């Protein structure tokens, strides 16, 4: 049988077993102690790092609640800003305005972002165009938000000859796209190739496989990415300064300047009046709570949708 290339006998020298390790030796006992110490040391370090990260976060939130809650009242949610020197007034127009601008930017930014991510992950593998898109997205992600505002100012506002809610939506949408594109791509990359093959093997066309198998499987991660992008732009002020511009009255028109909470907070916080400072605190609290509620609602809704899809 020696000539059989598929049969290799074990090498002669390897037949002897190694001598057993003496676990009671001094060296092994020291080793055990060392491992015990290192293990606990690293655990303590990890917990400590977590605390260091969380403490400032909780401190900020607590201070915000402390300063904001005392200034909150019903008028804040129902009234538009009062003229300087007059007590009362609220930021109802800012809350609604933020809702409009954010809705607009989500409508534009999320589909474009996801579509680009799908192209990168499913169709553009190894193509030069994909490389270019990926590079552009990364650069766009690093563009300072004030620059984005200026860009939209010259691209949209200058052409329309006036500030508008639409321009604000475009600015925020462009800020959302790179984050959503890259998360979508990364999430799609975690979908195992084997389940794409399962679908293709059943004679399912590629577009349907992408839609019903890849995207559906990656959906929880993609939704998280969209929510992160949303939460990030929801608090942006700089891109709105030259686009949505802000106002002090009710306006629901997309072609007119519109109020937004971050803008109002900015203006009020910079003002010399104590009354306005309090309103700025209240506005900050409301903004954070709004973002948290929006993100949580989408999460719950998405989770329910997932379960329905599975049953």
């Amino acid at each position, binding site marked *: 049988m020696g000539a059989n290339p598929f*049969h290799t006998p074990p090498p002669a020298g390897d037949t002897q077993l190694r001598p057993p390790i003496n676990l009671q030796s001094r060296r092994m006992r020291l080793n055990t102690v060392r491992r015990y110490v290192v293990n606990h040391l690293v655990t303590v370090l990890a917990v400590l790092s977590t605390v260091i990260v969380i403490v400032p976060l909780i401190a900020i939130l607590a201070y915000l609640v402390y300063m904001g809650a005392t200034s909150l009242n019903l008028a804040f949610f129902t009234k538009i800003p009062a003229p300087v020197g007059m007590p009362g007034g609220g930021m109802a127009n800012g809350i609604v305005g933020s809702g409009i601008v954010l809705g607009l930017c989500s409508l534009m930014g999320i589909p474009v972002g996801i579509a680009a991510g799908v192209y990168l992950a499913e169709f553009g593998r*190894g193509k030069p165009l994909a490389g270019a898109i990926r590079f552009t997205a990364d650069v766009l992600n690093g563009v300072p938000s004030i620059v984005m505002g200026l860009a939209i100012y010259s691209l949209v506002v200058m052409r329309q000859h006036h500030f508008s809610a639409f321009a604000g939506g475009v600015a925020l949408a462009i800020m959302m796209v790179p984050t959503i594109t890259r998360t979508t791509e990364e999430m799609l990359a975690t979908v195992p190739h084997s389940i794409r093959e399962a679908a293709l093997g059943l004679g399912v066309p590629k577009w349907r496989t992408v839609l019903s198998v890849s995207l*559906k499987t990656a959906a929880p991660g993609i939704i998280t990415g969209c929510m992160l992008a949303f939460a990030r732009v929801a608090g942006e002020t700089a891109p709105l300064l030259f686009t949505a511009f802000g106002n002090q009255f009710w306006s629901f028109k997309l072609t007119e300047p519109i109020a937004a909470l971050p803008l109002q907070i900015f203006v009020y916080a910079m003002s010399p009046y104590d009354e306005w400072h309090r309103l700025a605190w209240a506005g900050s609290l409301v903004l954070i709570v709004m973002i948290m509620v929006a993100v949580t609602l989408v999460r719950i809704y998405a989770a329910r949708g997932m379960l329905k899809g599975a049953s």
Partner: protein
Amino acid sequence: MGVGINVEHLNAWYGTTHTLQDINLNIPANHATALIGPSGCGKSTFVRCLNRMHETNPIARATGVVRMGDIDIYKDAQPVQIRRRVGMVFQRPNPFPTMSIYDNVASGLKLNGFRNRAVLDETVERSLKSAALWEEVKDDLKKKSGASLSGGQQQRMCIARALAVDPEVLLMDEPASALDPVSTSKIEDLIFQLKSQYTIVIVTHNMQQAARVAENTGFFLNGKMVEFDSTHKIFTNPKDKRTEDYITGRFG
């Protein structure tokens, strides 16, 4: 009913690697045909050429003639049409993780736009029964995710999924290699029953398995098909020295 497959001068490449070199082979209808050979010899590439899955890899390419019944699958049809006639079961169970057991089995029909509830229900039941899984899952068809089943059950579910689109050919790429012996024997029993209705091509590393389930066996080596004959002949009296070496080498 199954359909015979006639392969002539099939060549396949991955990039510049010539993975399959001039394969000629007749796979008879309604029989099980086993493909054996060492890892990397081209068996998997070969079965992937039979339903045009090979070309889903952007750097892969294939030439030659593969006739299924009276159509040349590389000339007369779109890949999507071929894959609906040829079911495939992969090495590792690959259920759709977001879908229930029911939806997994019905996916081939549903994702191709088929919506008739009654027909779907009936197909799911029939396919699961053919795959010998019905009794184990019938109570939580829509409650449980396909991914929550055990490995062996998942693989039988994947077989049911392939059967649900009513294929003529069933390609199995090492369907039991990731399973324990009990699940493996269930899959083998299944192949034994299914081969009266489908043409089955099974890639395996387990030569006893080939001997148990297949009427014919082909031995692949370095991208070429060395020998193709009845399984009995291949294992008792191979013509080629390399086939004999492989078989005896493996059995020690």
